[in-house]
């Protein structure tokens, strides 16, 4: 630990990105690149799953390998791609947005990051001892009989990543509450920080309960207890309750940070104030709260009593209210704006349309009578990919394009970015939209073999998934071209008002030369502001700032 001194001024070396560095910007990039690496790994697994499903017979891989593939795909995409990608944005942006020089606990931050590769290597090493086959949910008793060591490695990986996630959340909350510049009160804080506050609260309250479930599962697996094993008098339903007490909020942990990203991207690229700042801020907290009391809607077919179903059905449908508030506010922000249809805004609009579908199918699934019909079918698979890919990943790409100039100091390649968007949008919808139909027809998820009548629709999904896979190439091209020969971005290429744009691109070590000054609210675009030299339009002032190198 001796060399882990808290950042000292000087130039950033490229080797810093491979060390235990405490600079929040380095850690943000470390998170982002690591999670993109695991996106690639999980993506290869997804393509293998889709290739297997191109035909009704298990001809590409054996059913056992198929089980391992979808289990690992789910686990990697959730715990090593979307959750850490959210942490990447939070680490990079929170201190910049609130005018701080770093996170509250820089060393803790670095520890949390370095737990990611450890967890990832543990998980992938489970392939050498027989990877887990019981899905990312690991329901007992199935998880107790399908390969002991693979399952145990899976548990260890999740415990490590869960701990990292908690340490990250402690850092985010402390930084947001304690390190804002003095003239930024909580209601002039960028909405991304509000989103991370809601996310962190959920992480702190729900992730530990998953740890409790995994500890008990571990005892069943390794020590012969029977907490969840019905043959020994145990109760698998208890696992489901504990598991979903985390894993439903986990959905919001995965999507709330990206709601925050959308709230930042939309006003900047439509040159309009955000519609309903407080409504968006507080609806995030409402989603957090409701997220803690909806978990049993995953268990409508687990013999839950009627009154419990009614309760969880009602609370689940209530989530649509704060979510709807956000969707309408974002649409109202776009309405009548001077839209600059660059890659960042295109992905944000793509997010709005696909996430809307994911949200609506969510309300359908909340209805117990409908859910019982489509439980564990491809309808559910379609639904959560619309939430997590159509929602989180679209917004994630939007955020990457939006902050790429800040992170690298150069502009990405716009043409390839747009090609990336078009291919992603087509590939994504082609892959996941038909799954709703398949599910309604009764095709079960998590099975390598299926009824031949579903083959043609499955082939559409598989072709879509190939387009989706290829769509990452234009993304990489756009990023690489930007890095090699992109024009210099300057401090504020988008003429945005949040504080991260007031400093150099990329920001210097410790972020700001002097404490940044709030001269406008975070979203006061196109509004006359009263500055010392009379009433100058914010847009004019932004142009002036943008011209500063």
């Amino acid at each position, binding site marked *: 630990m001796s060399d882990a001194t808290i950042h000292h001024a000087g130039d950033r070396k490229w080797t810093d990105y491979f060390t235990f560095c405490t600079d929040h910007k380095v850690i943000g990039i470390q998170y982002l690149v690591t999670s993109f690496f695991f996106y690639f790994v999980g993506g290869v697994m997804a393509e293998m799953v889709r290739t297997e499903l191109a035909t009704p017979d298990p001809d590409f891989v054996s059913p056992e390998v198929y089980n391992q593939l979808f289990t690992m795909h789910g686990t990697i995409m959730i715990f090593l791609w979307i959750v850490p990608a959210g942490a990447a944005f939070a680490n990079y942006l929170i201190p910049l947005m609130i005018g701080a020089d770093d996170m509250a606990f820089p060393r803790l931050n670095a520890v949390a990051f370095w737990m990611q590769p450890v967890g990832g290597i543990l998980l992938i090493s489970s392939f050498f001892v027989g990877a887990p086959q019981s899905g990312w949910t690991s329901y007992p008793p199935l998880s107790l009989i399908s390969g002991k060591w693979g399952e145990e490695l899976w548990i260890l990986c999740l415990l490590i990543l869960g701990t990292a996630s908690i340490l990250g959340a402690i850092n985010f909350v402390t930084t947001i509450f*304690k390190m804002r510049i003095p003239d930024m009160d909580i209601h002039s804080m960028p909405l991304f920080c509000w989103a991370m506050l809601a996310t962190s609260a959920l992480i702190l309250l729900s992730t*530990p*309960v998953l740890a409790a479930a995994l500890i008990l599962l571990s005892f069943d697996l390794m020590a012969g207890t*029977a907490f969840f094993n019905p043959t020994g*008098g145990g109760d698998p339903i208890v696992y489901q309750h504990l598991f979903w007490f985390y894993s439903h909020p986990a959905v919001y942990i995965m999507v709330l940070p990206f709601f925050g990203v959308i709230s930042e991207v939309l006003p900047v690229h439509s040159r309009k104030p955000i519609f309903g700042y407080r409504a968006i801020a507080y609806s995030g907290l409402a989603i957090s709260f409701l997220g803690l009391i909806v978990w049993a809607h995953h268990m409508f077919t687990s013999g839950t009593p009627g009154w419990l179903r009614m309760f969880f059905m009602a609370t689940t449908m209530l989530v649509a209210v704060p979510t709807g508030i956000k969707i309408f506010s974002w649409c109202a922000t776009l309405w009548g704006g001077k839209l600059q249809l660059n890659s960042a805004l295109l992905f944000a609009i793509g997010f709005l349309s696909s996430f809307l579908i994911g949200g609506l199918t969510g309300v359908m699934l909340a209805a117990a009578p409908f859910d019982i019909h489509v439980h564990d079918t491809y309808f559910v698979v379609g639904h959560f990919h619309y939430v997590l890919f159509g929602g989180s990943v679209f917004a994630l790409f939007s955020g990457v394009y939006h902050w790429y100039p800040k992170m690298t100091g150069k502009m990405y390649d716009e043409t390839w970015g747009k090609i990336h968007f078009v291919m992603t949008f087509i590939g994504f919808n082609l892959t996941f939209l038909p799954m709703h139909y398949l599910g309604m027809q009764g095709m079960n998820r998590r099975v390598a073999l299926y009824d031949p009548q579903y083959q043609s629709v499955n082939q559409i999904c598989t072709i879509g998934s190939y387009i989706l896979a290829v769509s990452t190439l234009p993304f990489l091209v756009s990023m690489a071209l930007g890095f090699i020969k992109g024009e210099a971005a300057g401090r504020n290429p988008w003429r945005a008002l949040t504080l991260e744009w007031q400093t150099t691109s990329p920001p210097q070590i410790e972020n700001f030369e002097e*404490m940044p000054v709030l001269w406008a609210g975070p979203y006061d675009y196109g509004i006359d502001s009263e500055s010392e030299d009379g009433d100058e339009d914010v847009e004019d002032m932004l142009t002036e700032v943008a011209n500063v190198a």
Partner: protein
Amino acid sequence: MQSSATTNTAIAAGYQEAATEHHGHPDYRMFGLVMFLIAESMIFMGLFAAFVIYKVTIPDFTKELELLIPTVNSIILVSSSFVMHKGQSAIKNDDVKGLQLWFGITALMGAIFLGGQVFEYAHMEFGLTEHMFGSCFYVLTGFHGLHVTAGLLFTLAVLWRSREANHYSSSNHFGVEAAELYWHFVDVVWLVLFVLVYLL
């Protein structure tokens, strides 16, 4: 927490300081520790919830437990919290000897608690896998015992560091406060556990 006005000024003052000097950050560690303990308490909540579900749904779940040692243990652990607080009061008066005395006694009491638990395990009629109550008993008390061990190590670490003159003083003793808060946390969890597992 003071009133919000004072807190705001404190933040403002702290920031000014931080802008000029890196290591002059105001201390946020207690804030962070409290959040960590909230997360920790949720693990116990999960385990307790599972215990209660089993207790309510499984017929003949509860087994009689010998109460003498755990009751003595509870008294020792609860009183050690007060003993420890004396140590914190001592360091607030720059009395390092007092800190060492009271923290030393606390560590001893913690060790006696753990010894009592080991004794209890050794004389228990059932093992880990015989019935659900036994499994719950060992996992809950064991997981709590791990926390007592962590708290004990924490206390010993404070004692070790206090050998160095001026390591802790009335103005700088976060380690002392953190060890104490952690110990109180472990103590409160034990009370809930004692009522749930032994008494009900």
